[in-house]
Structure formats: structure tokens, C-alpha cells
């Protein structure tokens, strides 16, 4: 097992313990799944979920789309995104300016410092 240990100079990392933990976690998950109902209980009204008397929404309506996730995070970082997103103009001439600007900074950084 020692040969499987990655030495980083400051510590060590042996993935085998993690693999065992993964296997145990998967086994527990499998047991929990086995304890569940194999299918909805019956057809018709008895098989529908109870939603306080409301109709079951369509699959499209129940799925949370990608844009809705982390809305709060991106909104909280609005000040950052308001500056960084507009830099990605999609305009080739702007991108060429970025290349030339970066080159100029590198010349100063490498040539002078």
C-alpha cells in the first residue's frame, strides 16, 4: 500500500481509504434504494402525488433550469459581472487589442523589471 501513497513534500495521500469509503457509501445507497417502493402505488388517481389538492405540474414546469440555479450567487456578484461580462464583446478587433495590450505589458514587465 505504501507504493500507492503520493508524497507531496508536506504530506501524503493514499486514495485506497477513499476508494473503500466510496464503496461503503455506494453499498449503503444501494440498500436505501432497495428499501424504497419499487413503483408508484397503483394507476390512476391513487398513483398521483398529493400536492395540497393542486394538479400535478408538467415535467417542464417542475424542472429547475440552469439559469435559475445560483441566481442569488450571480446577483450578489452583480458588481463583478457587470464589469467582467462586457469585456467579452465577441468582437475580434477588441480581442486583438487585448493581445497587443498584454504583449505591451509583458514587454514592460520583462524588459524593465
Amino acid at each position, binding site marked *: 500500500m505504501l507504493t500507492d501513497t503520493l508524497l507531496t*513534500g508536506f504530506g501524503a495521500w493514499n486514495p485506497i481509504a477513499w476508494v473503500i469509503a466510496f464503496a461503503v457509501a455506494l453499498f449503503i445507497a444501494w440498500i436505501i434504494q432497495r428499501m424504497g417502493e419499487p413503483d408508484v402505488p397503483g394507476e390512476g388517481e391513487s398513483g398521483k402525488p398529493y400536492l395540497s389538492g393542486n394538479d400535478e405540474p408538467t415535467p*417542464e414546469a417542475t424542472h429547475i433550469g440552469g*439559469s435559475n440555479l445560483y441566481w442569488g450567487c450571480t446577483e450578489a456578484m452583480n458588481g463583478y459581472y457587470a464589469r467582467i*461580462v462586457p469585456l467579452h464583446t465577441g468582437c475580434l478587433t477588441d*480581442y486583438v487589442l487585448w493581445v497587443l495590450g498584454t504583449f505591451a505589458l509583458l514587454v514592460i514587465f520583462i524588459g524593465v523589471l
Partner: protein
Amino acid sequence: MMDFIIANAPALLIAVPMLGAFALPLIGRLGDTGRNGWILLITLVTAIIAVLLTWTVLSGGPVLYTFGAASPVDALPADSGGIPIRIVFTVDAFSAFMALFAAFVGFIVALYSIASERLSSGKDGYYALMLLLLVGILGMVTTGDLFNFFVFLEINSLAGAALVAYRIDKGVAVEAGLKYAFLTTLAGLMVLYAIGLLYGQYDSLNMALIASRMTYTMLDKVALALLVAGLALKAGAVPLHFWTPDAYSMAPAAITALLVVASQAGLYGLFRVLFSVYGLTLSYVTVGWAVIILGVLSMVVGVTMAIPQKDVKRLMAYHAVSQSGYMLLGVGVGLVVLGDAVAMEAFGRTAMEGGIFHIVNHAMYKGLLFLTAGAIFLYTGTRNLNKLGGLGHSMKWTMLFFIIGALAIAGIPPFNGFASKLMIYESVFAFSPVIAVIAMVVSVLTLASFVKVFHAIFMGPAQPRHAEAREVPLPMLVAMGALALLTILMGVFPEQIVSTLIEPAANALIDQGAYVATVLGGL
């Protein structure tokens, strides 16, 4: 036969895929079966040659191959005046490492493409360009000649641009291809101008000879700035990354996986120039910090730009930018302490090994993620995260492969991304705790981003609009499965990979004298 192949492996590594590309219009007349067999044969043979070449280098030291010489190892014939006048391939452990995984990804991409492109037209051109892209990558990482490097860089860029634009897609892909072509040509011209400056001073195009004569004049500094800017652009480092979301998202999925390796060939060029051509003559602290700044900017801007994306491939493209930052950071820290033997042994070498290890890990898990994106697009026809959902019901294998790739890129143990990131975190922490914390936060944001993607694509009830979605054909599953398996194995057995491939590669970069001596014979 085997001796001939091993003796000529550097040349065959380029010649075989080039022959495969130019023969494709003829082979294509045999039909799909013949073409598929040909492309698989060529990429498999190329991968086997790369394995043999790597084995030769790791067991016997760097391989020198002089084109047109009576003996391939004779770079300095008696009447040459001590100047390697012919084109020379100098394959050390770093070159062999890059060639090995590039050739492997080439085979995987070919395997995936025979299923993903089976209903498309223009396959002769597609595969010919794909093989030329592979030629460009392999040439860049094996040549020891600067002008030759430029030629392969151009082959790499032009073939890549043509492939980005290949499936026109109402003109959007053509626009992406145009941007990629223009910017990478600009990068190529910057590299060419730098080569001209070096040639004007040192009367040679050979990297080892230039390294042995390097005096670090003002012209050398300008050449270095040109090389860093040009190759950082090719690698997609911030703030030169603008082409990546367009090119990566519009290219066919299999090609995107290979474009990631093409960008890493740019990183290879950057590291080769910094360590092997300039080495200790440059102001390594200043230039090392420049590389670190590019790395940190790439990590932070890449991941934060990924979070709000709605197109899954654009999101992955920004993550590719972010992951490149880790490689720049690790190797940049090694460059800062290049002249400090104590610091190099304390943390510099580990940082470099982490950065180099991350290159191959990134090629595996990011290639895997782009292939899963292609699988999702195959039957749903959309990359929009707001229009996807519930695919876990019908694409279980693709979902499993996506989970493996997502956990690896987020640096979750025991996948390969964790091993290389751990090496980077710990070594960079000794150099600068603040930068190490930034690197860890970027990993957390990466995980958050991929949780979003996973939920948006695979979770939720089955969507009626994707009723046609089903598991992709077997070759695509096998290709994804091979990358997923390597992503796991390289994470579970990291020490074997590090001691076999990564340490020799890092040592080859650090030991400039050995690189020079390979060509000039012990100067």
C-alpha cells in the same frame, strides 16, 4: 522491424498520421467501413509509436533524431562547424509525456467520431483535418527546432480552425472558426517574429544551440515577451482566452477534446521556451511571477465566467481556461525558484510536478466532459441548460461518465484532479498561502458550477421534449469509458503516474544542461 520503428519513432510519430491524412480522399472511396478502419488503424499505430518512444526515453534517456543525416543521432556532422544545421527532434521525458497522452486522446477522439459523425457528410475532410491537427500537436511537442515548432504550430492552428468551422451551423461555427484562425495566426506571427529576433542574434534555429549561447539581451527580452504572449494565447490563458468559448463550443464534441490538447501544446511550448531555451539566464523571478499572474487570472476569471453560462459547452470552455490556470500556477512557482536550489527542493519541484500532472489529468477529464456534452447534444439537439433536463432516465452511462469527469475537475478525491491539485495546493501554500487559498476557492466554485450542470441536464422528471433521447452508440460509450477509467486509475494510483512520467518530465524541464547536451554533446 521493431528495431526500425524504435530507431525512427520520432519521425514515424509525425509521418504516420500525415500519411493517414493525405491518403483519406483515396481511402474514403472504400466507404464508411474502410474509412473508419483506416482512421482507427492510423491513430492506434500513432499511439503505439508514442508508447514505444516514451518507453525508449524513460529507459534510455532523451532521444535525438536528425532528419536527413546519415545517422539520426548525428546532429553535428564534421563539416557543420558545431552548428546543428538540419532539423532536429529532441525528445526528452517532457516531450515524450506530452506526445504519449496526445496520441492516446487522438485515438479516443477517432473512436468517438466514427459513431458521432456517422450521419454527417464531408467525413474525408473531417478526418484528414483531425489527423493534421494531431500532426501539429505531436510536432510541436517533439521538435527541437524553433522554426519547425512554428510550422507545426501553424498546422495545429489552421487544422483546428477549419474543424471549428466544419459544421457551419448557420454561420455561427464559421464565425468561431474565423476568430480562432485570426487570433492563433496572430499568435503564430508573434512566435515567428520572436524566432527571427533569436535567429538574428544566434545564427541558429536549434533550441539547444540558442540555449547554449543565450545572453539575455534586450532583444531576447522582447522575443521572450512575444513568445509568452503568443503561446499564452494559444493556451487560452486570461486575458488572451476570448477565442476559447466560441471555438470550444462550436467545434464538434470530439474535436473539442482534441482542441484542449492542442491548447496544451501551446503550454508545452511556453514551458519549453522558458526552461530549456532561456533557463537560468532570464530574470526567472520576474518572468515566473508573470506566469503566476496569468495563472491566477485564468483560474478566477475562467471559473467565475463559467458559473452564469447557459450553454453547456461554453461553460466547459470557461472551465478549461480556469484549469489551465492551475498548470500555469504550478509551473510558474517552479520558475520563480529556479535559481534557488533549497526552495526548488522544498516546494518548487512539487509545484512543477503538480502543474505537469494537471496537464494530463485535464486532458483526460476535460476530454471526457466534452465527449459527454457531445453525447447529450446527439439526440437532444441542444446545448442550452434551460432546455435540458431529466436525461438521467434515458442516458445512464453518459450520466455516470459525466459524474466522474465533474468530480475530477472539481478536485474531489479519489479522482485524478484531486491528486494534481493537492500537489499544487500544498507546494503553492509554502510559496504564497494567499494564492493557494485562491486555488482552493476556485475548486469549490468549479464543483458548484458542475453541480448546476448535473442538475440541469440529468436530474428532474423525464422531459417529453427529449422523449427521443437514448443512450449513444457503443463506440462513443467505449471512448468515454476509456477516459473515465483513466480518470479513476490515475486518481487511485497517482504515485505510479508521478514517479513514472511526471517526475522525469519535471526534471527534464529543470535540467537545461541535459537538454543542451542531448544535441550538442556535453557542452
